[in-house]
């Protein structure tokens, strides 16, 4: 078994022992946190429904294939597999849309295929850039955001290209 196969139980045990050592009511914390997880599913589910409906429409109409064909030269230039383009396009805009599109791609190509792994690494190492920038700066009352958006987008693009490379190597 790979080392990561022991990861979850080891983490669960480690944190549990630490919590018990500090007299934290471990089991209530687990249940209360689990409740928050349920709330999270409840908030995300409507967004998943709307977005996967749109994704399915895009695929059935042939629009997804058309977009992919138009943008694949640019993607290849960066070493990004054209199959992952739907995720690359939506990732900076919406977290739940990225989850929907990523799940769709992983299901279509298989979670352990090269495309499936690339998609997973992309999702794990990038963020909802536009959302984050707007929430943070709006909350702090900043209007002149200067180079924050271009710098964050350069980070995203680097992440997508690196994910394409690393998913193949590691």
């Amino acid at each position, binding site marked *: 078994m790979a080392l990561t196969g022991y990861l979850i139980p080891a983490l669960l045990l480690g*944190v549990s022992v630490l919590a018990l050592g500090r007299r934290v009511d471990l089991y209530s914390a687990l249940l209360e946190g689990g409740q928050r997880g349920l709330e999270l599913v409840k908030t995300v*589910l409507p967004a998943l429904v709307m977005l996967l409906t749109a994704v399915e429409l895009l695929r059935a*109409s042939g629009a997804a294939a058309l977009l992919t064909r138009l943008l694949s030269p640019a993607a290849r230039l960066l070493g990004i597999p054209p199959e992952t383009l739907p995720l690359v396009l939506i990732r900076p805009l*919406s977290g739940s849309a990225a989850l929907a599109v990523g799940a769709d791609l992983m299901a279509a190509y298989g979670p352990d295929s090269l495309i499936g792994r690339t998609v997973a690494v992309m999702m794990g190492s990038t963020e909802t850039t536009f959302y984050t920038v707007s*929430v943070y700066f709006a909350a*702090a*009352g900043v209007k002149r955001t200067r180079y924050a958006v271009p710098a964050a987008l350069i980070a995203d693009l680097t992440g997508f290209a*690196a994910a394409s490379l690393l998913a193949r190597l590691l």
Partner: protein
Amino acid sequence: MAMSYIWALLVGLSLVCALAGDGGDLSRAALAGAGRAVELGISLTGSLCLWSGFSLVLERSGLRAGLGRLLAPLLGRLFPKAARDEAVLGALCGNVTANLLGLGNAATPLGIEALRGMQAQSGGDRASDEMCRLVVLNTASVQLLPTTVAALRGSLGSAAPFDILPAVWLCSLFSVGAGLGAAALLRRLWP
């Protein structure tokens, strides 16, 4: 609001494409997509609940606060002005550790607190270099445990959902490095 336009655009684009070409039955596709979303939601629920429970234990046992103290010297170097204020540095450390541990819900309020503190230091409605750096750090997602993605892989039948970890870590480092590097270059162009 932006998502409203994007969603309408996606649906409109599909309809135009289907009318122009020979698309399949779009009504059937729409309903199938909606149904699959619920299947996805249900298959993710178990691991999301487990990880939310795990992260609350992390919080209550003081592990997150401890990790935050470890990071203070490093962050002090990246944000020298902000580090002069103890409270701002504290929020900053909290924000970065919450991101590292994948506690998105805890990360955002702490990040905003740190950003407000920096804004109080610099004044005005212009983002200082350190404010831009903080935002870049938050958009580049440095995560030790990408639990949602792993949950998704697991629900789709991956043999080892966590075997992407080394790739995710390296990839995050590259993207944060590129973001901070770009920020250092671009600051001269945007006074």
